[in-house]
């Protein structure tokens, strides 16, 4: 399956490059409304047609992909770091510290996070630019998405801290910090990497869900969520197959993230 992994990574690189170069590749601004060309079919000027406000779909797809592909990894990094800090500390220290931290984790896991996201978002200041709003949305995702990963990391850290090589290191006079830094963390790397990699598509899909509810990225900035909202009004009566391009891209990109994981990362 190496070829599949390479193909998936190659596709992700290609998509990332296209969205990073959106300023040069996009036929128009993502916000510009061509009010005389509403819901237009694909043409030379608009290769994927226009949306219901006359905005170029390809441009919105490129910029929307940029938003999702840049900020989802950032949110995944934030949540992985939080998970490493909380789960790692709990697993390594053990005892009542672990019990308290895992109780907090369980509480976090039992929260209806979509409701929590909607509530927290409603409390945020209103007068923020669309870019700030998207950063806030993903930061919220990162801050709320660490709990499941923390449990896995805690279990792994606990196993590691009672393993023979750690006992040997402890017996040879290594202090707690050195044990953590030189022996535990390097061995937690694969699981942290896997958690990070798995979180990216989760956050992409979460933002898409929020966007479909109209609570994602603020207009006029596009994201995959807001682009997928167009499909809400898709109907057999006015079939426009090019409307499915964002959905196909989302599915393929999310799949590529999963295919891109190595076997050992999956097993860890």
């Amino acid at each position, binding site marked *: 399956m190496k070829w599949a992994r390479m193909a998936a990574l190659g596709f992700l690189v290609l998509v990332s490059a296209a969205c990073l170069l959106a300023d040069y590749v996009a036929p128009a601004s993502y916000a510009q*409304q061509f009010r005389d060309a509403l819901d237009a079919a694909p043409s030379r000027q608009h290769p994927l047609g226009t949306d219901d*406000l006359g905005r170029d779909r390809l441009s919105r797809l490129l910029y929307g992909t940029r938003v999702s592909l840049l900020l989802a990894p950032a949110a995944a990094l934030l949540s992985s770091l939080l998970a490493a800090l909380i789960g790692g500390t709990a697993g390594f220290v053990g005892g009542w510290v672990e019990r308290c931290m895992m109780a907090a984790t369980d509480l976090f896991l039992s929260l209806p996070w979509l409701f929590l996201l909607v509530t927290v978002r409603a409390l945020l200041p*209103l007068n923020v630019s669309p870019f700030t709003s998207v950063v806030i949305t993903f930061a919220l995702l990162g801050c709320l998405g660490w709990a499941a990963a923390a449990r896995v990391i805690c279990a792994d850290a606990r196993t590691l801290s009672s393993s023979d090589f750690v006992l040997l290191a402890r017996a040879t006079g290594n202090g707690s910090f050195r044990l953590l830094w030189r022996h535990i963390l390097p061995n937690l790397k694969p699981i942290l990497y896997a958690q990070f990699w798995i979180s990216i598509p989760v956050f992409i899909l979460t933002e898409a869900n929020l966007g479909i509810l109209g609570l994602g990225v603020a*207009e006029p900035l596009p994201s995959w969520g807001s682009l997928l909202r167009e499909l809400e*009004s898709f109907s057999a*009566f006015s079939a426009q197959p090019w409307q499915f391009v964002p959905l196909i891209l989302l599915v393929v990109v999310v799949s590529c993230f999963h295919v891109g994981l190595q076997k050992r990362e999956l097993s860890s």
Partner: protein
Amino acid sequence: MRQRLVRFVLLLSVALTTVIASAQSGGQLRFCLRSEPKTFNPVLVADDASETVRYLTGGVLIRLNRLTQQLEPELATSWKVGDNGRTISFKLRQNVRFSDGTPFSAEDVAYTMDRLMDPGLHSPTGDAFRSGEGKVITQVAGKNQITVTFPAPIVGLDKLFDQVAIMSANSPQKEMAVLGPYYVVENKAGSYLLLKRNPNYWKQDAAGRQLPYIDSIRLDIQQNRDMEMLRLVRGEIDFINSLDAEYYDKLAAEAPNLVYDAGVSLDSEQIWFNQIPTAPLPPYKKAWFTSTNFRRAISESINREDLARVVFRGHARPAVSWVSPANRLWFNSKLPPHPFDQKSALQILAQDGFRMQSGTLHDREGHVVEFSVITNAGNKYRERMATMIQQDLAGIGIRLNVVTLDFPSLIERIARSFDYEACLLGLVNDDLDPNSQMNVWLSSAENHQWNPSQKTPATAWEAEIDALMRAQASTLNMKKRKQAIDRVQEIVWQQEPFIYLVNKNAMSAVSTALHNAHPVVLRPQVYWNIDELTLGTEVAGNR
């Protein structure tokens, strides 16, 4: 031989009568409700589905003809409003029976008024009759005459009875005994509701045939609008009472002979600025929002024609006033349309010291002009309007941030915390009489959204609106009332506390199998003349 011939003729006539009778029995009308009715008690109706059932089953004293917008006698053959709107006397129709056979009399009207005004029931319909402190007194003068006296005058009192379905005081079936064209026979929760023709319905057509023509109505609970459209196209339902612009266009592309656009409705979409003195906003923004010049400049920068054309696909009209042009009697036709002129908008802003600096508008003190508008998440039309307004305002250097919030959060901000700058919402209006909007236009009212619950009017023009609204509410003289409402419309046009954007059209879809349907702008658009609708051809008029 002769006896056989007589028998044959008799049999033939019986058979023919049966055939004619079956031809006249109008089959089953089917349409969809978006949700289950929450109640069958007509005084407790608060949701659309229950309102539909009340309209189809309830008998009323007076009915507003949705086509002519005139009141017509129903169970009351005549009525008289007296004491400047404090009393109303009805002369009732005789020999009328409820669906279960119980006779109808003035006692039932008295009972209904009693239930309607019962403070323990909190009847939403009864709220419109609560004119002041004190009890509502009913005086039954014989079997067919009744006078109802209210503690204070009520403007448009007779029109309010269009919503009052008369309940039986004596029937063991309570609210299930009705005087309307249909009665409920089956309610399968979450699935469907079956209504049957009321055998005791009092109304007859010009030929003396008892109405309604259609035997039964099946109301399927169907939330999915795409499914509803497919079912209409397949012939499984007979109409869709209300369509939005997107679904109208989809259906028009597939089956253009099914769709109706009855024209502009009473509903409006508007945007307003927060002018509340205690709102948690910086003082310079409060100064912008309370400036008439600022509001007018914003209004002139919005391309309403584009909103109607792009967002509503042409199925809306740029709004002029708080009274829709669909309201023929009360709309002030002398008001000109709001112009779309961004140069003029900049000139108006310059009067308040605003100036453009490298494509961005700044106020007198140098603040960048930027504000947010909130609207409810999930309403595509409002989100699209906000996005278009965002681009329009960028044309005069204003940065608009569009924020979509879940509805409870939005209500929290506009009604409790007042932590917002501008809001885009709509008003669904069913009442033709502008007096029903007293709770919006009086400065002391809670729904005076831009600055609610004022102890004294904050501005001279709000004081004038207060005086005019109170004046029109204190007289039954239609000419004086019309003058007052026209003047209020002028003031609102000039001051723009609400920047009215568009009035949406009333659209519906009707199967070719349904006859005598004349969709109108007032609710219920398609079945307002339910007792005249037919599914067969034998009594069909023009469609």
